[in-house]
């Protein structure tokens, strides 16, 4: 995982739920590449096409509330989302994102940004820079054990390492 992530932001509202992130009708899909084609489709049908590799999602409180479907995290990761910044995360989404190796940052800055602004997240200093609004904010670091899962690329590689199953 990159320690400094810089990207273009998409700003979403509060309580972006899992049905909006990944509608239930797509749950039978098992191919992660296909999942990415429906990322945030509930926001608007053309949203998946707008997402580009390296983009950052910025949202208000309660991001990922609702279902335990990890596809909500997988589809964002596979659509190239580099990180999600939100005022708060629902607990199952938080775990799912960590387990998919998708970095999360807790910061309530959605109302300071607009679509297309550039944001830089520095995990070395736990700081976010958003030059468009001339702002800078510190965020609470993730627990070391949680960060270790993200850095391993997700829970599957982390468990493989732990069980000595890596070549």
């Amino acid at each position, binding site marked *: 995982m990159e320690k400094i992530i810089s990207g273009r932001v998409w700003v979403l509202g509060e*309580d972006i*739920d*899992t*049905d*909006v992130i990944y*509608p*239930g*009708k797509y*749950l*039978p*899909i*098992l191919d992660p590449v296909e999942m990415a084609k429906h990322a945030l489709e*509930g926001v608007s049908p053309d949203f998946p096409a707008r997402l580009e590799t390296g983009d950052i999602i910025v949202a208000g*409180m*309660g991001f990922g*509330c*609702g*279902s*335990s*479907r*990890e596809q909500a*995290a997988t589809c964002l990761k596979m659509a190239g989302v580099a990180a999600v910044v939100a005022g*708060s995360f*629902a*607990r*199952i989404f938080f*775990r*799912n994102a960590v*387990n*998919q190796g998708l970095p999360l940052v807790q910061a309530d800055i959605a109302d300071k940004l607009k679509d297309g602004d550039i944001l830089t997240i520095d995990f070395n200093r736990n700081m976010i820079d958003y030059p468009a609004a001339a702002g800078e904010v510190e965020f609470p670091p993730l*627990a070391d*054990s949680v960060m270790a899962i993200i850095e391993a690329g*997700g*829970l*599957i590689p982390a*468990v*493989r390492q*732990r*069980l000595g*199953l890596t070549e």
Partner: protein
Amino acid sequence: MPHTIAEKILAFRSGAREVFPGELITARPDKVMSHDNAGLVIKHFRAIGSEKVFDPAKIIIPLDHRVPAESERTAIAHKSIREFVKEQNIENFYDIREGICHQVMVENGHVRPGELILGTDSHTTSYGCLAAASTGIGATEMAAVWATGEIWLRVPETIRIEVNGQFKPGVTPKDLILYLLGRLTARGADYKAIEFYGTTIENIPVSGRFTLCNMSMEMGAKFAIVPFDGETRKYLESRMKEDYTPFAADPDAEYTERHIIDASELTPQIAKPHRVDNVVPLKEAAGIRIDQVVIGSCTNGRIDDLEQAAAVLENKQVSRSVRLLVIPGSRSIYIQAIKLGIMEKFLEAGAVILNPGCGPCLGAHQGILAPGERCLATTNRNFKGRMGSTEAEVYLSSPIVAATAAIIGEIPDRVTES
């Protein structure tokens, strides 16, 4: 130190003398449950590369989300699950005929007081109705549990909710949990456990406690627990030997919040689109035209739910502008409802009865909404697009309110019992 129920269960399952809120622990769950998404769990389990699951006796797999298979893709997933449970000697596999996973878990003795249970479904919190600590996780995480038998968990703070007094006629545990959602909001219990106390709770049977613990998840709760009492024991008598160990909270345990509710003041409640905490008293939503009514789901598909709804519909007809879908929560509830004449009442009133399962609740199949349509459901979520079109609307209520709406074709201003 005094502790809450969640703290005691997590201490026990992590082998610690005591644990404290905020601490990250490694716990060994008593049981783990997956439904149709076991297909995805299996895929991840293969990717980890373990040959055998940690303990086949601790894994329970009921198929319920898309039953019978609504598509070839689902049929393939179901087939892979049937092959996997044979290969791994997982005996607690319930194929499509049995019912909704959480109902199947509770009915069939897979939930014991004091246990820690994980499930790849957010409404796994339901097992708090039998004084267990249970919560939802994702498929990758479950694959790791299948491989290792362990999970990391953060010890949650606990919210104490005390409810006293008697419900007015026509008011049910669903109205109570909708009211609580409106009051505490969809984020009000994020990362926290909830414990329920009070005379109202003591008098609510396991079925209604199930509804409370089920929808506590919609407040963000990690666990929702009704402490073990005579009602729990009575429910379990016919289902298992009394060899379980319930945990009680210490009287001076520390709670992060305390709420006291007077149940006698409660009226029927409605959650309006598209938020579960957009809750208003029934009369504030009265008159809204409804195209479809769904009575069922893990939230309200039990025998007393069906009985209450059927009583409203008896000798009446479902409005010609409404499609009423009734889904018993399990095969056993279905059989009981037939024996009690409940199904006859539904059919005579003009309802369509679906096989036990999740179907329309998550927009999987069986009752998908078109743009512009409105549904009143006894289910647990009304998110945009939840039951089909993103331009459809879902309202949430009790079975009594839903049945009343099915007759008049709109959200009623009162229920017949009140």
